[in-house]
């Protein structure tokens, strides 16, 4: 599969929450890097399958929209936007991303998603401790 076709197949399967289809896109020792996953670097079909299963447990809906893909030999880069609902936050997030795919003989050798995971946290702070005395 060409790297641009692999990106399209990955995105379609991601939207369908189809872990198995994503996992078998990768070569046996393929590398999947996704900042939202913990750990964010998964190697091999078994790790990728387990990581995505965990991810889909906390993401109610995820939709990818790829704006354009450029290809050079076995490598492709795509630019797009991910929207996702995270039940814990009760809100939808929109995350711009770039994605790099490298094809190998037996599947994706590497799929790296570049996006900023910093603004999205899965917890919030409790109330701040009361201070010493009432208002003056």
């Amino acid at each position, binding site marked *: 599969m060409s790297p641009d076709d692999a990106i399209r197949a990955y995105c379609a399967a991601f939207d369908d929450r189809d872990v198995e289809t994503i996992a078998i896109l990768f070569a046996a020792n393929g590398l999947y890097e996704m*900042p939202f996953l913990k750990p*964010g670097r998964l190697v091999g079909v078994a790790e990728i399958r387990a990581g995505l299963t965990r991810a889909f447990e906390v993401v109610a809906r995820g939709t990818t929209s790829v704006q*354009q893909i*450029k*290809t*050079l*030999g076995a*490598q*492709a*880069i795509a*630019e797009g936007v991910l929207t996702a609902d995270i039940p814990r936050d009760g809100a939808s997030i929109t995350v*711009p*991303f*770039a994605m*790099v795919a490298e094809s190998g003989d037996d599947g994706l050798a590497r799929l*790296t998603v*570049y*996006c*900023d*995971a*910093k603004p999205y946290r899965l917890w919030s*702070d409790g109330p*701040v*401790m009361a*201070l*010493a*005395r*009432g*208002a*003056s």
Partner: protein
Amino acid sequence: MTPKEAINVYCEAFAAGDLAVISGLFTDDAVCELPLLDDRLVGRERILREVETAVGSLRDIKVTLGPIMAGEDDAFAEGIFESEMIAVAPMVDMTPRRLDFRFVIIVEMADGLISRLAEYLDTKPIKPLERSRVFTVARRSPYWQGVEDAGVSEFMVYNHMYFPMVFSRTPLEEYTALVERVTLWDVGCERQTEIRGPDALAFGDYLAARDLTKMSTGACRYSFVCDPDGQIICDPVILRPWDDALWLSHGSTDLTLWARGIALHSDFDVEVCEPDVAPLQVQGPKAINVLHGITEADLDDLKVYRCVVTRVAGVDAVVSRTGWSGGAGYEIYPLTSERAMELWNALIEAGRPHGMLVTGPNINRAVERGVTDTSYATNSDMNPLEAGGEHLIDLDGDDFIGRDALLRVREAGPSRHTVGLLMDGVLPRLEWNWPVTAAGGRTGVVRWAAHSFALGRSVASALVDVNIEIGETVQVDHPLGVVEATVTTLPFVDS
């Protein structure tokens, strides 16, 4: 220029810090989307300003690009960015602070120039949240959520509270915002010792080393509070917002306990407490612009070291024209913290058009301006004459705590004095007072040290033997070795 050439030239020029080349790459209305910055940059001038700050924050920049995939009007590439940060002190084991990441760069072209440049990277690993040392034993400020959202990465414990000091930006970004625009600081840890009652002024005058008896309502004074041995407990800004009340806005020391204990065993008719007042500082030349539209009082009429009781964003507050930037700015003291985040959010909105950054107090600027505080003088075996504060004490007026001891110091002459040091090399983080030595067995200690952006070198403030003179060369022993320093006067930089 082709899109492929544009990516190559931009990355090479960025690594070389070549602003002239970068300037020629963009259209006038180009857009830059960089996750490391808070805003989307629009326009060539804005892009150039941020690039200038970025390349000035880093040294040994290296950009390695993979294959560039180009179309007629755009190009994509994956790359690795490597650099060392300037003015972020290396660890004591000499590990330098670096900014390294992988990224994808995308350019879109119009008429041979870049009309859009986007970078994609995860800033999470390079903007770590500091949560590992947060315990309930120290209090949080009521602006906690605000500083978390602003990307705080390091706290100091100050007055038994968490004090947000370091945010996920380079020091030069914050320094530039402070000296050219405006910054917002959560200084909720800057506690007030409130003295209220008929004898408030007299009691304050007895606590502080400076004559407060002529202090009018609305006045502020910078002074020292000393112990009976004349040693500095702290150096508060004293405010008189109301006729019957003083606030001693103090550094990291239990001043309220000290004042309350003295009041309990005196004949002064006062009440002493720590009110629920968590200040903010709005510092920088555009601070007035930020406060203008949301403050009821006319701040144009508020002179330096004056304060006014007013409302900011509808929240009752005292506003003083004081601060720790060594330049223009204000402190806002909301009268309770109940509406703290409401005030914070209003300031964030008011600051947005002026490019306001949420930061901590800027140590680089403070040291080069000769501003001192807790790390320099408080609770640290130093008297006001040694600290260079003789003009801030009134030894010939009314009695105050420590006066007799300070009279003896004045008569004998202080044995040490405060000087500036122009230091060689990169400084490690100041985690203790570094020993200073000079010929003839004369000694001292470095108490503040930082990179000065104005001078482009390392500087320090030190308390040294009074016989160590301006212009002399001394040795400073810090974790990276023994380095030479030239003794000079303070401040290093005028306003």
